[in-house]
């Protein structure tokens, strides 16, 4: 079991460019979460999928951010027209089932917007 896999580990973009972050949840896990970590805000919930369907995106900035889960083996977080304030570590997590206990986190993608 390789755990939750996130790619790339580091991404550097210029202001205004697009960034796509990838997450491969643990096989068989039906719930996938995206979080963002910054020094100022700590860990913030962004969005959550269950069986590939978006359930709660209340933490997503309304503009420029979008997340998809086209199949059960991967999810993407896309940030359009990146801004310096988007710089953060983006974490993906999965759990076996909704309402099910332990979340397993990937190592994260460090996004730096110059």
């Amino acid at each position, binding site marked *: 079991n390789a755990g939750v896999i996130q790619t790339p580990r580091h991404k550097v973009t210029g202001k205004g460019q697009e960034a796509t972050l990838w997450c491969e949840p643990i096989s068989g896990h039906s719930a996938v*979460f995206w*979080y963002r970590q910054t020094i100022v805000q*700590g*860990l*913030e*919930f962004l969005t*959550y999928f269950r069986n590939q369907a978006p*359930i*709660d995106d209340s*933490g997503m900035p309304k503009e420029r951010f979008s997340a998809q889960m086209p199949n059960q083996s991967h999810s993407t977080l896309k940030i359009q027209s990146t801004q310096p304030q988007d710089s953060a*570590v983006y*974490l993906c*997590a999965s759990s076996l089932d*909704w*309402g*099910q*206990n*332990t*979340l*397993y*986190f*990937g*190592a*994260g993608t*460090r996004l730096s917007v110059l």
Partner: protein
Amino acid sequence: GDQVEQSPSALSLHEGTGSALRCNFTTTMRAVQWFRKNSRGSLINLFYLASGTKENGRLKSAFDSKERYSTLHIRDAQLEDSGTYFCAAFDSGYNKLTFGKGTVLLVSP
């Protein structure tokens, strides 16, 4: 205000001593999870509790949903325990895991 208030924000311990981290919740939470960030920045699961207490080695955690708090006790601290510890709580719908801001633990000889 924050739903999960974690304290202290920083903690210094000498080897062999112990202390407790605490998270207070402003609403009723279904469960709590404690994590430690490792040297690679990954979040390592320490405990998941829906109630009661759990113990693993020198770590022990408790969760009281009614009283709205959880604790993580560390005893006989070792140098390798140094790092950042996070608590996180599941809301009533198990939809979200809300994190505290973390405790930076430094264990010194």
